[in-house]
């Protein structure tokens, strides 16, 4: 067989190769990936740009750390990737090689992309069990409610949450730490291809940090690409990051390994500011 490729640009070429390989060996799962090409994010209401062109390709399951000072644009970028209406997005965002910028948030989620939010919302009058049962049935193809609830119980347990939490109203009256853990369990329930975790470790006590790390590990084991936004190098004591991204003032100023975490721990972000300025920031 002769394969003729008209190469348009690099990522199209790579995708075609990947899909071609996948078609040759269908039992091998085509690698799920998230790609951002020169993504710029501005606030619709004010027009203010807060992310100034981020390019990143996350191509294999693993943990991708995003660090950066407060206000660097980490959460905004994550929410923009999910399609939050507050943001205008330029550039291209591909999931599994397909441009998702025209899709609604729910459609993105159904395609395997989700975000553990920094501010999970309360859903009054709706039990945790109902939310989880619906999610597990939809995302994991489980048909029986009993089976779905069994799995929900197990996921809660992974995060050290009691099974009795299933009977509570979703997020209502929960402590900060409980919210974080429940939110992670929810993301786990979705078995996402790509999970963006926005500070799942903040407000979580020292011992629970290990549980959060376990959950992140489980996501990776189940094949997810995990993008972990964090301020706490502590969490990384339990995890092995694939890559570390450092954001400053709406730009990715450094990509590397664990040594970047150590540098931030020791020096703060001064050096990152320097890099940002040399990249054209004011």
């Amino acid at each position, binding site marked *: 067989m002769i394969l003729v490729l008209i190469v348009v640009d690099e990522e199209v070429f790579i995708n075609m190769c990947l899909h071609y390989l996948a078609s040759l060996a269908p039992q091998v799962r085509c690698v799920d990936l998230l790609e951002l090409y020169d993504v710029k994010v501005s606030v619709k209401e004010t027009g203010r740009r807060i992310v100034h062109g981020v390019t990143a390709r996350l191509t294999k399951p693993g943990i991708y750390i995003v660090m950066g000072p407060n206000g660097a644009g980490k959460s905004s970028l994550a929410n923009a990737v*999910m*399609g*939050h*209406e507050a943001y205008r997005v330029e550039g291209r965002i591909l999931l599994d090689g397909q441009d998702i910028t025209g899709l*609604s*948030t*729910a459609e993105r*989620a*159904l395609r395997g992309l*989700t*975000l553990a*939010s920094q*501010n*999970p*919302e309360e*859903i*009054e*009058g*709706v039990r945790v069990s*109902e*939310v989880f049962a*619906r*999610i597990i049935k*939809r*995302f994991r193809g489980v048909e029986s409610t009993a089976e779905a609830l069994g799995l929900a119980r197990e996921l809660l347990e992974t995060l050290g949450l009691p099974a009795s939490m299933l009977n509570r*109203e979703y997020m209502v009256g929960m402590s900060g730490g409980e919210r974080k853990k429940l939110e992670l369990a*929810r993301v786990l329930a*979705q078995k996402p291809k790509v999970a963006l975790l926005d500070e799942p470790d903040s407000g979580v006590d020292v011992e629970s940090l290990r549980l959060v790390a376990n959950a992140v590990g489980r996501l990776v084991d189940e094949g997810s690409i995990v993008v972990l936004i964090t301020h706490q190098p502590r969490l990384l004591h339990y995890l092995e990051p694939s890559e570390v991204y450092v954001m400053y003032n709406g730009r990715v100023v450094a990509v590397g390994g664990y040594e970047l975490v150590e540098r931030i721990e020791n020096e703060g972000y001064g050096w990152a500011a320097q890099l940002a300025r040399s990249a054209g920031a004011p």
Partner: protein
Amino acid sequence: MAGRGLSVKEAGMDKPLTDLSRDDIVEFSRKRGEPEWVMRRRLEAYEYLKSSPREPLIDGLLEKVTYRVFIEGLENPILSVSEAVEAARRLGVRPEEIEIIYSGFSVDIDNVMVKTTLKYLKSRGVVFTSMDDAVKRYPLVKDYAFRGLNPTLNRKTAYHVMLWSGGPFIYLPRGVRLPQPLQGVFIIGREGLGQTEHTLIVLENGAELHWIEGCTTPIALRYAVHLGGLEAFVMSGAKLYVTSINNWLGEVHHMPVKRVIVRGKQAYAELTSVAFRSTTSNTAPRIDVYGEGSKATIQNIGLYQGEQRVRGSPLLTLHAPRASGQVLNRTVVKDEAFEEFYGRIRAVKGAVGAVGYMSCNTLMLGERARSITVPAVESEEKNAELSHEASVGRISYNKLYYMALMGFSEEEATWMVVNGFFNPVVHKLPLDVQVEVRKIVELALLGH
């Protein structure tokens, strides 16, 4: 089902119901073979209507129904038993539980379960029959009927008393508690004044009953008015739960009258309405708590849509020391629907230590829906404690966004939030009703 032998050929049949004469009422009552005292109640209502001013919201709707249409509706409800069963099924009633009473006729369904239940009830001294029958056979009825729904209470009640026909009479002797709810289904089978059923419930000391009534139509009607009535008397230590589910099709104007009198001490009465489709709805359920330490709840959940116009004016009156109660209204207003809520709690002088609480929560869906809430608490007794709170909310974008992260579309998320919003009231209702409410909400918000 047999007709009542009222002739529709007589002259003057084409006048509107608001123009009936004294003779019309006398004749209506005679032909029904009612005892004198019932006719007197109808005439009292007639006199009251003559002497009180017209109310557009009530008279305006009844003017569109002629006496002929009213009588014809009673004689042939153009509804076969199977249509009735089907309509009841849509209200979530299982066929094996059906006992249908409508427009004054009890439809005999050859149904073993219903017969067994009725036999069992009879053996315990429970009376469960039609009001048409009860006024003739049970002298006790005279002591209660139209004393809660007094014909001079207000204009709507007067119309109801003047024109009532059919409905159930339920009597529970001392100490009889029915663990399973009893259900009734009222069906408007044709245009006009479809329903003037009268429900009378009497619970003796320590008795307990959950009465569920469903109101519906089998087909979309061009025009119908529902003017049903319910009155109940609750003695010491007795507990009464009434749940009414309304889900009409077509142009149906829903204006029932309801009143519960809690006579005994340490008793409880609860009026729940679950309101879905109707063109207009004008309700004013009342509970009067006369028994020391007795409690009451008037609650409504509603989902209003299209161009629905809904006015709710519940009234809870605490007459006795340590009487307490609550008025709860949880409604979702959608499309161009318009809701007005005028809930009232009164503590009468002498109701020392009475406690009343009112809570009105509205969830608005869409920009064109409207809602007005005017809660009122009036205390003539300084040692009574009445309070209220109200909230009007929308589903925020952030909530929809958050739920979208879980893969829920806007419709699905809205539907879940609405179910959750109703839940504080719904989760205490019988399971069948819960299931039904969920189904109706699903149909309204998801279209399936």
